[in-house]
């Protein structure tokens, strides 16, 4: 796994740039990651990101858009507004979590 520097910190990422170590993430890193994919972080974005971070701690996997809706209380439609086109992937990317499983 490559190591790169984000916001002055060394972090491990996979070939698609997703962070691979849960504890290497920080809010500063999230801000940089969001910038890279043209997302301006607002309080509403943070609500989603914080939900994803907490949920991952108990579940061990990245929440799906459905789970963010039913458990996190943010409707899928709103997730598309916050993270256009590919919310599941973008949310996980900024939250420093693995890309949600495609469920083959």
């Amino acid at each position: 796994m490559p190591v790169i520097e984000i916001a002055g910190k060394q972090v491990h990422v996979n070939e698609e740039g997703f962070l691979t170590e849960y504890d290497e993430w920080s809010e500063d890193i999230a801000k940089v990651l969001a910038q890279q994919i043209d997302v301006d972080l607002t309080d509403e974005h943070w609500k989603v990101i914080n939900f994803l971070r907490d949920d991952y701690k108990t579940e061990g996997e990245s929440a799906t858009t459905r789970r963010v809706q039913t458990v996190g209380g943010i409707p899928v439609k709103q997730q598309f507004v916050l993270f256009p086109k590919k919310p599941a992937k973008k949310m996980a990317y900024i939250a420093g979590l693995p890309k949600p499983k495609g469920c083959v």
Partner: protein
Amino acid sequence: MKQIVILGGGTAGTMVANRLVKFLPSDQWRITVVDQNNEHLYQPGLLLLPFGKYKPKDLMRERRDFLPKQVELILSNVLAVEPALNRVQLSGHEPVAYDYLIIATGTSPRPDQTPGMDDPSIWRNSVFDFYTLDGATALRDRLATWSGGRLVVHVTEMPIKCPVAPLEFAFLADAFLEERGLRDQVSITYVTPLEGAFTKPVASKQLGSMLEERSIALEPDFVIERVDPETKTLISMDEREVPFDLLVTVPLNMGADFLAGSGLEDELNYVKVDKGTMQSRSFDNVFALGDASDIPASKAGSVAHFSAEIFTENFVDLVQGKPMPRAFDGHANCFIESGKGKGLLIDFNYETEPLTGKFPWAGIGPLSLLKETRANHLGKLAFRWIYWHLLLRGRPIPIPALMSMSGKNPTTTN
């Protein structure tokens, strides 16, 4: 006397009942299967039924005939599972207590979960599912007289039963319409919530180019919000619109309703389990096999089969008070019908994506991975016999439970 209760007498439930009786002495273990009816449906046949390849009666057998004699079969609806009380509530029957519970109640299409999809003005008139016998039969009748227009093949949300089936449906529809001289009067669009034709890169590339070769348009990243029954249009969360004359959809798939509120389930009513042992993450004496679990593998008969094999071997250790030493790897093995008497085969697991190569023997085959061949199509047809005679009855088949890399080409050569 210890009691095992298996909920669901479908592919997974039947296989595991047949395996367990081989290992557990019948004077110490009682095994009960609960299902709502006595009809066992050969589900892979539902893909071919709409094109007139099978009749409904070709796909139906009696469940009882595939269960061992010493296994009790209760025909009843499950009302509730009470894992804290080790008990199952049934409709019109005494509650059944268990020492071990195996949930194998699968997954069901739920068109009611997408606004407008099952509107009576369009449902099974211009909107069809094909994972149910009624849906596949209604679709067959519609296709028989259809004169052309916009055909849309659609997947609502992952995970779904047999994730390659909607792609196969698109390939088969293309060949079927060409045979009937209708292909130039039909546009076909494949609408999916995934980023491409399939999830994993190598297979997605191969299957994506097969869509292109057949002039099937791809609409990726489409998360549906609703169906407009009046204009016959799919509308996505980000307000894209796909109009249709004939929609063949895979509705949202969900686990059984009785799991809601049981403390065992996720938000789609799948039982949350350890992906290696299929043991419930909240109750040690509860397991889920087949489509009913939340393991990140294909919801497919092959996965049910391989995982049931691992489960049974582990279970024999578990009941002797030993740890469960084996871990399932997510092994799946799926034929993909591509039309005109050809097919592909994919073989993969949690870690290894579907790759090209030969199967099951390196260099020999006779089957080819991720490549269209006649032999793969014949394999798919032969599979119906294998299913009824070997697989369900827990007899050995020449494919190991855990995936092998033998014969597979690593990702650089595709």
